[in-house]
C-alpha cells in the first residue's frame, strides 16, 4: 500500500479483509468513472477519505478512532445494515459500484470545500469543474471577468519555458498525463506537440495549479528520436502556437496588467498568413496600426463583440506587438472621429465576399 499519491484521492479502507481490499483496488482501476485511476488505497495517516467495513468486529472502534483522529476527514460506512450507524453515510453490501462513486465524489467535494484541499488531477474532471465555475458570461462591470493572469495558466508556464529555452539554447519537453507532450525547439523556433487539439483547448483554460506538468531538458538526439517514435506529433511555429494558445486562454479577457483606461497601439500588423486569422482581427489591426484608442471603444467603432477585441489584444501582446505606454511614433493618430467609408466601399466589400466564398 502506498503512502500517498500527489493529486489523487487517497483512500484508506479499514476493516476490510485482503480479498475485499483487492477487489476495491481493482474497482478503482477498472470501472468507468470520472475518478478512474485517480483513487488510490493508502495508509491511514495519508488518507483524504476513509471507508470502514462495519461488519468487521472492530468496525465500530475503527470508526470512532477515525472520527477522533481525523475529525474533518469524511467516512463512508459499508455494512450489511448501515442504518445501525447513526450520523454516518452508509452503504449496503454488496456494494453498488455507481453508488460508491457517487459517495466518493460527494465526500471528496465536501473535503475540498471545507479544507480548500489540494486539487485532484484528472483533466476531464477539472474541466467539468471549471466549466461550472465559468458559466457566467464576461461582464464589463465585473472586473474579475475582464482580466486573467497568464502565469496562472499553461500559457504563462509555456512562455516562461520558452524564455528559458531561448536563453539556455536548450530543448524543453513538457510532459502531461497520458504521455502527452509539448516540446520547445528554440533553435528552429518550433513547437512539437503530441496533445489532442480538443484537450489542448480544454487545458488551456484550466488553472496551472491543477495541471500536472513536469518539464525536462532534452538533447537534439532525443528530440529526433521522439519525432520518429511519435507519428502523431504535430509541428507549429512557436509564434503561431503561442498566438493560438493565448486566444484560447484569454477567452474574452485581457492580461492582468492591462490598463483599460489607457490607449493602446499596435506596433505593426501581425503576420496573418502564418497566424490563425480570427474574426475581425484584420480590422482591429487596420485600426490600431493607424490610431491609438481605448480597447473598450473598439467594439463600438468596428461593431464587433468585445471578446474578439480582448482576445486579439491578448494574443498580439504575447508576441510583443501591442503597447500601452505613450506612443511617441507619429505614425499613430489618436482616433477622434469615426473613420470614413471608402468611396468604393461596395466594390471592396464585394471583393472580400468573393475571395471569402470562392
Amino acid at each position: 500500500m502506498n503512502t500517498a499519491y500527489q493529486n489523487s484521492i487517497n483512500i484508506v479502507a479499514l476493516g476490510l479483509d485482503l480479498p475485499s481490499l483487492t477487489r476495491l483496488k481493482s474497482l478503482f482501476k477498472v470501472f468507468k468513472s470520472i475518478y478512474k485511476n485517480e483513487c488510490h488505497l493508502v495508509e491511514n495517516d495519508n488518507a483524504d477519505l476513509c471507508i470502514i467495513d462495519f461488519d468487521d468486529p472492530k468496525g465500530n472502534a475503527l470508526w470512532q478512532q477515525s472520527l477522533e483522529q481525523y475529525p474533518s476527514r469524511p467516512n463512508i460506512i459499508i455494512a450489511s445494515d448501515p442504518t445501525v450507524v447513526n450520523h454516518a453515510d452508509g452503504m449496503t453490501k454488496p456494494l453498488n459500484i455507481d453508488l460508491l462513486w457517487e459517495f466518493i465524489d460527494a465526500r471528496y467535494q465536501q473535503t475540498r470545500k471545507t479544507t480548500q484541499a489540494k486539487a485532484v488531477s484528472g483533466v476531464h474532471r477539472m474541466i467539468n469543474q471549471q466549466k461550472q465555475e465559468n458559466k457566467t458570461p464576461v461582464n464589463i462591470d465585473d472586473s474579475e471577468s475582464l482580466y486573467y493572469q497568464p502565469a496562472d495558466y499553461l500559457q504563462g508556464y509555456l512562455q516562461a519555458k520558452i524564455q528559458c529555452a531561448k536563453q539556455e539554447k536548450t530543448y524543453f519537453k513538457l510532459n502531461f498525463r497520458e504521455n502527452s507532450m509539448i516540446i520547445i525547439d528554440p533553435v528552429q523556433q518550433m513547437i512539437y506537440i503530441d496533445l489532442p487539439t480538443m484537450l489542448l483547448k480544454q487545458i488551456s483554460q484550466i488553472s496551472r495549479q491543477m495541471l500536472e506538468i513536469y518539464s525536462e531538458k532534452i538533447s537534439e538526439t532525443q528530440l529526433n528520436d521522439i519525432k520518429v517514435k511519435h507519428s502523431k506529433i504535430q509541428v507549429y511555429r512557436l509564434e503561431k502556437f503561442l498566438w493560438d494558445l493565448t486566444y484560447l486562454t484569454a477567452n474574452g479577457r485581457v492580461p492582468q496588467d492591462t490598463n483599460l483606461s489607457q490607449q493602446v497601439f499596435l506596433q505593426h500588423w501581425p503576420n496573418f498568413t502564418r497566424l490563425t486569422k480570427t474574426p475581425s482581427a484584420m480590422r482591429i489591426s487596420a485600426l490600431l496600426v493607424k490610431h491609438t484608442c481605448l480597447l473598450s471603444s473598439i467594439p463600438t467603432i468596428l461593431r464587433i463583440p468585445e471578446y474578439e477585441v480582448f482576445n486579439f489584444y491578448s494574443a498580439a501582446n504575447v508576441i510583443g506587438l501591442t503597447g500601452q505606454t505613450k506612443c511617441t511614433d507619429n505614425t499613430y493618430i489618436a482616433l477622434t472621429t469615426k473613420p470614413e467609408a471608402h468611396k468604393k466601399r461596395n466594390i471592396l466589400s464585394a471583393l472580400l465576399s468573393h475571395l471569402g466564398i470562392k
Partner: protein
Amino acid sequence: MHKIIFTGPVGVGKTTAINAISDIPTVSTEQVSTAQADNKTHTTVALDYGMIRLNNGECIHIYGTPGQGRFNFMWKILSEGGLGLVMLMDNSRDNPFDDLHFYYNEFKSFIAANALIVGITHMEDKKTPTISDYHEQLRRYHINPPIFEVDGRNRDDIRSMIQALMYTLDIGIVDLDSTKNYNH
C-alpha cells in the same frame, strides 16, 4: 475601372501570385530573361493581367508590373486608378531592403493616395531579414502597412494580402471570412 497592382523585382513571383487569385488564365507578356533570377528563363516585359469577376457584375483588374527596372515607364501607366499596391519582395535576394526602398520610392505618390501591402517571398529559403526588420525599414517613411510572409503559389496567402489591403483602405467593410471562428 477598379485595379489592383502587383509590383516587385524580377523572379519574386508576381505572375504566380496573380494567377492564384485570377478568375481568368493570366495573360503574360514574357520573353527570354536577361535578368538574374534563379531558375527563371522567362520574365514579364510589359505586364501581367488577371481579373476577378465580382458577384455584382463588376470586375477587378489585376496588373503585374514588369520586374526589370528599364520598364519602369510602364509602372505609372499601369497604376493609374488603382485601388492599392501589392509589393512583393524576395527575401533570398542579396539586398532585399534596396528593393524595398527602390519600389517604395517609385510608387510613393500612389502609396500616399491609396494603400500598400508588402508580401515577402522565399522566407523559407532565407529567414533573415525578418518581417519586423521590414517594418523597421518602412517606419522611416512613417508608414505602417501590413507585411506578410507569402508563398505566391498559395492562394490563401494572396487572398489574405488582398483582404488586408481592403481593410487598410476601409476598416468598416466586412466579409464572409469573419464567420471563421475559434468556436467561442
